[in-house]
């Protein structure tokens, strides 16, 4: 029973990892930007949520209504300014720029919020309540909600990319931005929109993480970015549903590792990550297989 429990908990936490990963995957799939500040931006979104909740006293679960659009605007602005500037030089420059951004954000957070960790919405019933499945399995409401949010986000993203005008433009620009220009599309604007969407998912990831665990200034690179990378690589670069599959596999591996020995939790996840990299470097769902 303990093993079944580990698998169920792993699957559910995979939803959180998919939220971490889908923005990273989108940015790479469309602009070829590997955003090393991805995790730090999620932490920023979490802190912004804490601030918004404290200042205007909205329910914790509604904080995303303000934080997600705000981060989407930040994403558009960042893409149109420094990220585009870096892209105009070379794709490798974006690595340096986002690494720099990551360092700046992390140290800025340490400066303003200290190294103390904080949760979002402490005392909320949803955070600690759970329901029982049989006698030995306890399932928390929060992981279920986060998993559901991740599925809804991925469904929404898929619908947007496949059906909407801008979704189509995003795919066209990802294929061939010069040809898109010849069709009258300003690829910089389209990049900005893609970054805005990615940052919106980053905001959700940061809030979800803050509710599930504790935010601190280093969580962005120590946890969120690393797990996002692992989920993206396991699932397959550029594949949306691959990020969910990757997240779930990472989550299950971690929970099973923890079941064997509590200190092996993170290690087990990265062993699976390494095995996938070695055996199937294109990921379990590669882009070619999907289309």
């Amino acid at each position, binding site marked *: 029973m303990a093993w079944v429990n580990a698998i169920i908990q792993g699957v559910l936490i995979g939803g959180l990892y998919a939220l971490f990963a889908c923005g990273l995957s989108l940015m790479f799939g469309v602009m070829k930007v590997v955003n090393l500040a991805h995790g730090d931006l999620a932490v920023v979104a979490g802190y912004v949520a804490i601030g918004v909740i404290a200042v205007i006293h909205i329910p914790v679960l509604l904080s995303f209504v303000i934080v997600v659009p705000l981060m989407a605007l930040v994403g558009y602005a960042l893409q149109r300014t420094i990220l585009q500037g870096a892209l105009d030089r070379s794709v490798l420059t974006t690595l340096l720029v986002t690494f720099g951004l990551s360092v700046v954000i992390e140290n800025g957070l340490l400066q303003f919020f200290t190294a103390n960790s904080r949760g979002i919405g402490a005392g909320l019933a949803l955070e600690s309540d759970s329901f029982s499945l049989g006698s030995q399995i306890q399932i928390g409401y929060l992981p279920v909600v986060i998993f559901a949010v991740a599925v809804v986000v991925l469904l929404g993203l898929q619908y947007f990319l496949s059906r909407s*005008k801008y979704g*189509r*433009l995003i*795919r*066209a620009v*990802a*294929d*061939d931005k*010069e*040809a*898109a*220009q*010849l*069709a*009258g*599309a*300003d*690829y910089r604007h389209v990049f900005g929109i893609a970054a805005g969407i990615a940052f919106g998912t980053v905001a959700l990831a940061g809030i979800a993480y803050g509710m599930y665990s504790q935010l601190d200034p280093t969580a962005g690179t120590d946890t969120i970015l690393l797990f996002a990378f692992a989920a993206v690589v396991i699932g397959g670069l550029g594949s949306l549903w691959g990020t969910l599959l990757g997240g779930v596999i990472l989550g299950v591996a971690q929970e099973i590792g923890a079941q064997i020995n509590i200190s092996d939790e993170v290690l087990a996840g990265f062993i699976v990550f390494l095995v996938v990299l070695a055996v199937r470097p294109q990921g379990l769902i590669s882009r070619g297989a999907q*289309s």
Partner: protein
Amino acid sequence: MTVSGAKGNGEAGEERPDDGTPLLVVRDLVVHHGQLRALDAISLRVFPGEVYAIIGANGAGKSTLLRTIAGLHHPTTGSVRFDGKDVTALRPERRATQGIVLVPEGRRLFGSLSVQENLQVGATYARPGPWTIDRVYETFDWMRERRGQLTAQLSGGEQQTVAIGRALVANPRMLLLDELSLGLAPVVVQRIYGMLAQILASGLTVLLVEQDVSQALRVASHIHCLLEGRTTLEGRPADVTADQVEAAYFGLAGAAPADQPGEGSEP
């Protein structure tokens, strides 16, 4: 300015619709690829309704000229004026919405998009005009049935047709066609050039680049030959001899016609 042809075919030039205003005026265009001077003082004027063909051997600068007109290369000096307005500084997407639309060499379709989605992207920023996705389907009837397929599943000729369709739905005033025949079977090339008449009937002006000289001479109302980035011949197909074209195309000094003050400057 233009080396030989402009003077030599002065009389022929009078028969072009010079009384009208040219739609496209390229003046003294110089384009560099790094250190290489890819285009050297190219000038041309294209009038509404014309089929203006640029011919020349590999590396003559034909594609560079078309891409510069479309805004994908920036000229070192010189200007591109379209419909009386200077568009030299405009980005490619702004030129497209003004009515200059290029069908690039190698087709460059969006590989992960279906045929229909390729056309939809082309129509996203379309100017008002006669071409719609439906009209493209009516013109190329096989396309409607296969609109859900990815373009990679189409043959080369079909892909080229989709690329033309994607450009047409933007309702360009001037269509730039870069090496339509590249990599296609002759019979397919014939069919694609056969469609040109229909395209022209909808009021477009066509500027095309073609390596196949006989093809260009058949369809063009005006030809312009480039050699190593310079103009070597210009005129109406009826007014140039095969020898002149050959000389201009290959740069054979001995076979050059008599009107060459500029021919001497050819290396």
